[in-house]
């Protein structure tokens, strides 16, 4: 799209962000700059407003609920008429390179990291008013099936019993076989939860292969209904799916739920890993009855189990899940970099220490604490120790100290350190768990800290009468 010699006047701005405080300050500055401002707290409302009001400028949170910013940008760029020309600014909480790249590919003009200062905004408006059009041509939008149901429920064929959690894969980044990882295990993320008649699987890293073999042995081919919740589509969370035995049994029903990613829909991303350059069996060729549903709501049910989701601080679109079972809550946040520590380390020196900057990060972390509050079991990213974290700021992972701090703050009962680094051997992971326990003991708290271990089963207390 060629830039016009004269930049069009900007009259209306649309602000989309769940966070009211973010909207308020941005709206004030935009009005001072002479723009009319309309606001939405979620992406879906934002999309309606964009279609009816045809704003000249859109500022949208990349992780807006119900329709994320990447998604909305792609949608608008594919529309005929003025929507494809509006200035689109995606806002995010972290300066991950992959997010910026995702914004560019979705067709955004700019990607800003929150909190956005008045100067940042003024500079951006200046660029939009004065200089040539920087908008990239809209990328072709892949065809997508209709939106998934918001309250999926899976038929259960699980024998009754107390709710329980079993770890099948606990490793982050890449499977790590070898004698030095035999105790905690080298398979990537996969956790099985059985509760209230439901079989719920959290992520499909290589651990799901062992789960599939075990289910086949246990149910001997009897039909199974399962729900697989995907936190995000980095390899270590999906690479086991082609080897999930239960998906090859035509009698089984597998519902896969997750969110549309920064770059493409969940269906596209999952089925691409089974295309012919990479895998000999296509996704469509798997005989099990498999459905993929893209989530919009941040709360839904799987049978009687209430599920809540939260966006995490990790490159791309990544969510955490909280399963409210009759035996207590299981919270699963496999990949997350705590905001406060991240902000403190990556901010520009002059503002990193500023109150406003850290307050914002603090609020983001409090949101997370509220999300996991009172959980019976918290499975949380603690890929590094504090020292290792220093050289891995912005990689999207947390350290054990922050994991323990969050669990303490949120009155969690049992914390499982998760997403172990491939370079950590069993001894190192044991030391990290001991470090976490020492931390808790020094504070005279009762939080139980363990490192997640392949094969470990956690039985939740029976439901209170």
């Amino acid at each position, binding site marked *: 799209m060629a830039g016009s010699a004269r930049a069009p006047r900007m009259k209306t701005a649309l602000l989309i962000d769940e966070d009211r405080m973010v909207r308020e300050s941005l709206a004030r500055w935009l009005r001072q700059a002479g723009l009319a401002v309309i606001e939405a707290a979620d992406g879906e409302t934002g999309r309606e407003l964009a279609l009816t009001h045809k704003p000249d400028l859109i500022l949208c949170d990349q992780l807006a609920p119900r329709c994320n910013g990447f998604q909305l940008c792609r949608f608008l760029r594919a529309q005929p008429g003025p929507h494809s020309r509006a200035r689109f600014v995606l806002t995010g909480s972290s300066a991950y390179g992959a997010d910026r790249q995702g914004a560019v590919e979705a067709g955004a003009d700019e990607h800003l990291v929150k909190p956005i200062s008045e100067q940042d905004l003024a500079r951006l408006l200046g660029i939009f008013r004065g200089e040539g059009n920087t908008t990239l041509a809209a990328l072709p939008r892949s065809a997508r099936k209709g939106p998934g149901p918001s309250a999926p429920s899976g038929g259960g064929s699980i024998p009754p019993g107390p709710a329980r959690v079993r770890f099948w894969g606990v490793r982050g980044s890449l499977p790590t076989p070898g004698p030095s990882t*035999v105790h905690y295990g080298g398979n990537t993320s996969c956790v099985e939860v059985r509760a209230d008649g439901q079989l719920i699987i959290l992520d499909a890293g290589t651990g799901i292969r062992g789960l599939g073999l075990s289910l086949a042995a246990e149910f001997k081919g009897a039909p199974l209904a399962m729900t697989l919740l995907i936190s995000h589509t980095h390899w270590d969370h999906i690479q086991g799916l082609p080897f999930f035995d239960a998906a090859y049994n035509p009698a089984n029903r597998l519902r896969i739920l997750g969110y549309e990613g920064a770059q493409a829909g969940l269906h596209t991303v999952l089925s691409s890993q089974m295309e012919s350059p990479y895998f000999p069996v296509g996704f469509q060729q798997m005989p099990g009855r498999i459905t993929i549903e893209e989530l919009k709501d941040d709360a839904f049910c799987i049978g009687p189990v209430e599920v809540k989701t939260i966006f995490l601080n990790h490159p791309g679109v990544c969510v955490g899940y909280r399963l409210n079972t009759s035996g207590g809550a299981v919270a699963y946040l496999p990949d997350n970099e705590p905001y406060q520590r991240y902000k403190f380390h990556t901010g520009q020196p002059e503002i990193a220490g500023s109150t406003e900057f850290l307050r914002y990060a603090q609020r983001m972390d409090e949101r997370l604490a509220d999300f996991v509050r009172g959980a019976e079991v918290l499975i949380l990213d603690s890929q590094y120790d504090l020292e290792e974290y220093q050289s891995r700021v912005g990689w999207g992972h947390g350290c054990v100290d922050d994991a323990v701090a969050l669990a303490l703050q949120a009155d969690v009962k049992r914390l499982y350190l998760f997403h172990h680094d491939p370079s950590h051997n069993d001894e190192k992971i044991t030391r990290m768990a001991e470090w976490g326990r020492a931390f808790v003991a020094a504070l005279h708290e009762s939080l139980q800290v363990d490192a997640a271990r392949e094969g470990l089963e956690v039985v939740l207390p029976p439901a209170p009468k």
Partner: protein
Amino acid sequence: MKTGLVISEDVEFRRAVASWLKERHWTVLEARDREAGLKLSQKHPPQLVLCDLLRPRDHGFQFCREMLQLQDPANPCLMIATGDSGAPDHFQSLEAGADEYLAQPLDFEKLSAILARRSGPPPAAAASGPAPGGTRLKFWGVRGSIPAPGAETAYYGGNTSCVELRVGNDIIILDSGTGIRPLGRALVAEFKDRPIHLNLLITHTHWDHIQGFPFFMPAYDPRNRITVVGFEGARQGLQSTLSSQMESPYFPITMHQMPGHVLIEEFQGLDFQAGAVPVRAQFLNHPGACTGYRLATPGGDISYLPDVELCQRLRANPDAAQSRLDTETPQIAGEHDRKIIEFIRDSEVLILDAQFTAGEYQEHVGWGHSCAEDTVAFALRAKVKRLFLFHHDPEHSDEQISRMVARGRQIAARHNSPLRVEAAREGLELVLDAAAKRL
């Protein structure tokens, strides 16, 4: 007169073995420990060593290694280790250089069978000590399909395909499954501040052959130069297939953002050079476009065919005949297999797909993999010297793999062949020098 050396702390054991050997016209020497054994073997080079690992445990393994170094390659000796029936001793003694392993208490019928089998052709010469500027080969990933971590795979290893080859100053890597992650760390530790230049040969782009590349440390150092070599796939070019695995839905860093110089070259012809090493490629029967490589090194030719389904077996299967290959005649299948045999003929080292047993193969017809029985048969027909079973199935435990090796050795012995059958194992390193090749 044949000389046998028996090493054990246990005098009863030594006596029992010695009298059994003497009855069979052996001269028998006895030693109670490793040092005495080494001294005796230098004075009177034995043709047979029977070493009891049970008591001086580590010294037994050490003895096997030292014997390997000391012995005259022209006059090799048969080394039999004995120990408890546990798998680790078994695997480790073979690794340390023993030719055979027998569990205690000793079954003399088994010993008799081994001697009968081994008395035919001389055992293949073992690799001798490192030769400067020689050829070295090291396995970093030997598993097929998907990495298989766990206690049951800790011995042979759970990482997917990756083999390192050093020829003079050339570093050649075959495939980049997850085994390339520890290889990358080892290279960085070895080279420290010196730049690394290497060639990475890709056989095909199924996950288990490329998934480790994003975790290959040398690709993150701007001083390093990595030339990735392969063929255009059935659906798209090598560049796009390799870089797609590092796109944002799947990985946070794109291939373009890797600071090292990563060059991707697609070959049209089947003959090319990797550094100074001449390489020949051969297309294989496996879904998509898959190649095998034969590398001509001063230590002998090394053939690497990690994924291939041998055609005649496929054809012979009634299910396959109806569906997948209904146009292919047995002659064409035979022709395909003959081409492979020509391609690997007389290789010093053959690394070949042996994912299944013959029994398992029946359930996996048309999956693009071979069974160990066929793998051994091909190596025999092609007069290969050393065969490494490769691309172990993720469901195979260490025990199953060692049973497949034993079965392979039986087949080789039945054919009176000097072929040495082993299973590829993570961390196993071969030193191939020009002298060993001539034997």
